[in-house]
């Protein structure tokens, strides 16, 4: 999906860049702005991270701030937690989201509970960045989505912006946050998504979804790579006089109830699209919330278009394509719902 444009809406003046550039420049500015900010992870130093996000940082900021850690994810997160408790602002990287499991204890058992268990005596202002998602021939262990393994956990914030402008604003918000943030970057959008990014420092409030396209017949809630496909699909349907409202969730925990309910009460039809497996995915909570709060406002069953309930996409192209949701499937689901 090369060349997808960032979602519309923003009449911002700024620089056009890709998602990966947005991550890179935001990290760079944070390092310049705040001495407490450190970056740590595997191969973030001389290699500049496997996607070259931190390329040149080691030379510019030195090995005390750009730390090539031993190959051990629990300690990457755990050591960063200790730094955060001691007042620094570490940004820990997990090289691929698939490798976050060994750090699960530190994220769920520790980071998320530090403020709570100490009743605020200690806090944990930590950012954990990691590339997730498929469509890049990453096979079983270089393409998983992980948001559903974490979004149930109180004390954690989870962000998954889809456009360069949102990445900048939300990554800044994550670094400012006094609590631990899991920051998810869809790797297929790294170089395929471009958009304008406002100049200067800004943040986007955590917990706010964004209506990336207004519409009146169907509400679509999505994020990540799928969001861009959903926008494409919605644009195609304009030709058929189907008006689709596309909401970019952006923030997975907390989630934005107001924006979703407002839209659903208007369109009376809800389609949730996410790449991760359907059963127990984040779409479940969105559907449950709407079924609790707006059941009688609905004119159609709540539909979830999500990854199949198999462990992962395979390496062979047909297996990856079968797993990923195509734009055509989205068009079909939106059309069906509009006609329902």
């Amino acid at each position, binding site marked *: 999906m090369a060349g997808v444009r960032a979602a519309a809406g923003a009449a911002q003046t700024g620089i056009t860049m890709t998602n990966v550039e947005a991550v890179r420049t935001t990290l760079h500015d944070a390092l310049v702005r705040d001495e407490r900010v*450190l970056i740590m992870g595997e191969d973030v130093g001389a290699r500049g991270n496997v996607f070259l996000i931190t390329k040149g940082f080691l030379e510019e900021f030195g090995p*005390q*701030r750009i730390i090539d*850690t*031993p190959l*051990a994810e*629990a*300690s990457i*997160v*755990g*050591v*960063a*937690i*200790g*730094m*955060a*408790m*001691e*007042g*620094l602002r*570490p940004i820990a990287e997990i090289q691929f989201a698939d490798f976050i499991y*060994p750090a699960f*204890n*530190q994220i769920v*058992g*520790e980071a998320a*509970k*530090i*403020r*709570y*268990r*100490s*009743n*605020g*005596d*200690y*806090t944990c202002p930590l950012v954990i960045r990691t590339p997730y998602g498929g469509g890049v021939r990453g096979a079983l262990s270089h393409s998983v989505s992980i948001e559903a393994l974490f979004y149930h956990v*109180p*004390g954690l*914030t989870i962000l998954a912006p889809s456009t360069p402008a949102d990445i900048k604003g939300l990554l800044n918000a994550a670094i400012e*946050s*006094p*609590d631990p943030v899991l920051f998810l970057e869809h790797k297929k959008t790294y170089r395929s998504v471009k958009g304008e990014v406002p100049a200067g420092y800004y943040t986007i409030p955590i*917990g*706010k979804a964004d209506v990336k396209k207004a519409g009146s017949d169907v509400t679509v809630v999505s994020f990540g790579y799928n969001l861009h496909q959903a926008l494409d699909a919605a644009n195609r349907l304009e030709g058929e006089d189907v008006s689709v409202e596309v909401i970019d969730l952006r923030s997975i*925990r*907390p*989630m*934005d*109830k*107001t924006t979703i309910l407002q839209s659903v009460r208007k369109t009376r039809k809800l389609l949730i699209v996410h790449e991760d497996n359907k059963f127990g995915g984040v779409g479940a909570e969105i559907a449950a*919330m709407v079924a609790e709060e707006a059941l009688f406002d609905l004119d159609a069953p709540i539909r979830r278009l999500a990854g199949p309930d198999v462990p992962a996409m395979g390496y062979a192209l047909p297996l990856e394509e079968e797993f990923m949701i195509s734009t055509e499937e989205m068009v079909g689901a939106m059309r069906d719902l509009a006609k329902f």
Partner: protein
Amino acid sequence: MAKTTTAGTRDLDRAGLSDERLVAMLRNMLLQRQLDNRGFQLNRQGKIPFALGSEGHEAVQAGAAMAFERGRDVLVPYYRDLGLALGVGMSPFEILSSLFARQTDRSMGRQFPNHYTNHDLGVLSISSIIAGHCTHAVGVAAAFKYRGEGGRAVLCTTGEGATSQGEWHESVNYAAVHGLPIVFLVQNNEWAISTPQDLQMRVANVADKAPGYGLPGVVCDGFSPVATYAAMNDAFVRARGGGGPTIVEAKCYRFLSHSTDDDDRTYRSREEIEERRKMDPVPRFEQVLIEAGVIDEARRKQLRADVLRETNEATDAAEAQPYPPAESLYTNVVAGDYQPWQE
């Protein structure tokens, strides 16, 4: 190449400690023993649902606390560190507030007993997940080094069972690679609940693991506060001076069952315990100080009476406090108001 040295003897080689500091260590040990017993007592009386004792660890902790510099160093303890908590400045009232789960507990009755937190004193908040805190200790040490705060060190404690955890390995390795100012104190009490050391590791000493990380490993007599102090002070001095981490293993024993929920009769012999009881560090250190003329019998009695009174007062004061209110369950999840669904 790292070498393993053994520090400590049982004589009153006072390791440079003044009479005052020797007595302070004894007082700490007596208070720890008293508070420890109080926990078990309150549990038997049905006043608290749970207690966990540190009997047998008094000398280790009094010695380690004496090497710790308040206001500079940071303590990342484990759940059997009552004496260390007291030794770095926590009050019996805090301890008892935690046992009673009262509003005056720093965690507001959230944490299990023995899971202290005191940011002012530099006592990090921990979970119950064995070895989960070790990487945090390393992170604090990394922060000291990053900010160039020479002269500060971190004390990270665990039992010997905890060294089996992958996270312990990652912690020690990270600290070693980065030469961080930290002391890993392993309180080897021979048991991890019912699991003896030989089902935990194939080496005789935890300190034998140190050379594999390129670190010095030291074994000390954990029944002697002076020996422990000496070993710990060396390690602290090395850490504060930029010499990197040390693993100190203090050999001690867990005299009681693991906790009030445990019954050790199923898995270890009474003989073993009796044998170890002969080394009971508390009467032994009293005796050592009396024989050395540092205290006399009257002072001994006085100290015992003091810590009993202190414990009684703290018990009454803590018990009189209210529970935290039910509504407090909802605060401090994250900063500010918190709802996963935002309106």
